[in-house]
């Protein structure tokens, strides 16, 4: 994992109308500039006429400001903000299926025990198990690294979601 990832990775959070095609409008705008989306999470809010989109993009600060303004111009985007890592609570979920042998089962249990705070075993057979884990992206990265010595069959991350920390005054562009 690139230790400098947070320097160029930025998190955008957008509140959008929950309608057909809105996600495509948002991702198109990023894609046409050739920027890669690192992760994307989208789901309705508690008000199901609205959705919240969290996008982690690999873009320097300056072009990102322009992207944020362009995204805000989309008719269906109601508000949008860029969250600096220090200003945000971020969480991600992963489901991982790992195969093990009688020889390394204990070592795997040891890894899971050390991560007990955020890892839950969802399913287990004689030779494999599926765990879920929730945490910061760094914690998920660490879990991935720890599991990589075993045979990882699936490692399915949800992508990061984020909200501003309480009391943080994050500049939010909002249709008045």
């Amino acid at each position, binding site marked *: 994992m690139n230790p400098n990832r947070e320097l160029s990775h930025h998190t955008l959070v957008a509140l*959008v*109308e929950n309608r*057909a*095609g809105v996600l*495509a*409008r948002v991702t*198109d*705008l990023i894609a*046409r500039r050739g920027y890669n989306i690192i992760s994307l999470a989208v789901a309705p809010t508690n008000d199901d006429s609205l959705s919240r989109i969290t996008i982690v993009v690999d873009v320097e600060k300056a072009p990102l*400001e*322009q992207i944020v*303004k*362009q995204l*805000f*111009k*989309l*008719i*269906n*985007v*109601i508000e949008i903000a860029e969250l600096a890592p220090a200003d945000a609570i971020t969480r991600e979920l992963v489901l991982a299926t790992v195969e093990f042998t009688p020889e390394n089962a204990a070592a795997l249990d040891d890894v899971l025990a050390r991560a007990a705070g955020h890892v839950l075993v969802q399913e287990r057979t004689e030779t494999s198990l599926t765990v879920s884990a929730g945490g910061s992206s760094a914690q998920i990265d660490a879990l991935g690294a720890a599991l990589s010595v075993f045979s990882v069959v699936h490692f399915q991350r949800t992508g990061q979601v984020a909200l501003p920390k309480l009391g943080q005054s994050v500049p939010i562009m909002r*249709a*008045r």
Partner: protein
Amino acid sequence: MTAPERLNGAEALIKSLEMEGVEVVFGYPGGAILPVYDPLLDGKLRHVLVRHEQGAGHMAEGYAHATGRPGVCIVTSGPAATNIVTPLADAMLDSVPMVCITGQVSLGAIGTDAFQECDTTGITRSITKHNYLVTRAQDIPGVVREAFHIATTGRPGPVLIDIPKDLVDANNPDSYFDFDWPEVPELPGYRPVLTPRDDVVTEAVDLMLAARRPVLYVGGGVLKARGANVVLELAEMLGIPVVTTLMARGAFPDDHELCLGMPGMHGQFTAITAIQECDLLVAMGSRFDDRVTGKVATFAPDAKVIHVDIDPAEHGKVRLPQVAVAGDCRIVMELMVEEIKQRGPEAQADIAPWRQKVSGWQEKYPLTYKQSAPGEGLKPQYVVERLRDLSPADTIVCSGVGQHQMFASQYWKFNYPYTWINSGGLGTMGFAVPAAVGAKVGMPDRTVWAIDGDGCFQMTAQELITASIERIPIKVAIMNNGNLGMVRQWQQLFYDERYSEVELGQDLPNYVQWAQSMGCVAFRVEETSEVDEIIERANAINDRPVVVEFRLVEEENVYPMVSAGASNSDVIVDPSQQAALEAERAAKATDQSSDGFPTSIADTHQNASS
């Protein structure tokens, strides 16, 4: 209270357009849009049947440019939708209010590769301000209302409505509903800011009053805001020199003593140089297009920037402004005028020396060209001058893209707003003829000249058939130099005169015969001595379209010129003036100018590094 009308989707669409005040639509029928064309027969809308869907789109644009009202076009699905992609992109880049209705295959057939199916909303997503795929007939009135609202407010632009055939099919019982014309909807994510914050206006006025070398850089946003009269008031109040961009020609009268003309790649020397040397650049509805700025790093190097734009995404997109004003140009300028009045004339710094310097450039480096000798072919500049002088002052001029466009912009005198219609952002060859048709439909009492290139003309000439049959008497000047002139100019200057695929030939097609076959009166002019007479005859015809082919010299370059990627300070002027300019630059480079102004960024850099 009358009982609600029970309409089907097609009838509701036509009725909605009528409710929006639409008087004319430009269109072309076909499979998926067929059901809409039936109730069209019974309604009040005028339909102009084009010969290619691209024509419908540019006509809608020309209509919108000339009238300020949204242009409307209706075409079918698939290839018709892809044919109208170019006008949509054009309208997007030039912020033209336009509503485009496309037919779509029936809802159930979408995604099955049905006949004439394409993903219209997907294809047009990035070239429309917004687009819709309607999925229920009863949504049609609301979507139409929203579409017109979005197209015409804030920064205007094109909006597309894609309507599946079954929603407008009179044989489909599900397409009927009780018609209800809704209020303009509240859109939670769309609330354009028209009125700026007071404090930024004050900040801007502070800079404007303190500036010693200000320039007002007027862009198309002023026209979109219907702000021409206010820009005149503001400029006169401050005595501030004004440049009008390609999209803003006519927003400020060319004959006004404060008008420096067009800036940019083929702008006037004074307009370009005044920007380079100003200490304050007031950008009013302009967007720092690369054709204006040249090399951005050396653009207006000493200037503080005030950037007024209704679209906040323009602020800092190219150049970081000292003061960013988000708002409608007209409203912002009205507030500025008010505030400047309150502060009184003594609040402004003395800009007389600056005005004098600017006038000096105007005298020294006016637009100029060398008249051709008899038998050589006509000079395009001369043709534009004669068209200008022999046509009514409020003539609407449309142009294509290339050398003729630049000559038209340079040599016409635009003294009224909405008299210049061209494709500035997208640079769409073939724009002129259909745009002129649209403009004439919107402004039937005005003379409309399309000044077109021979290459451009061949792209959309078929719309002259539309003009003849629909009795839309436009006039077309074909500037026939037998070449893709602008490309040829670049190959001459930057590709070592290696001419690659730029020669069209002057003799094929036979433009006069072609125009006549399309129902036009047609003339060919070969000699300078014939120019006036033929233009007068063309201007006297008002019952059918006229085409005048002007046989030009094959080689004529547009000057001034800033080479691609070069600094505006290195602008090249007409060959007859270039030696004097270079001598002046050399003298200034060795001897710091006595009035204390560095003459150009190049000089400043040299001095700084020596």
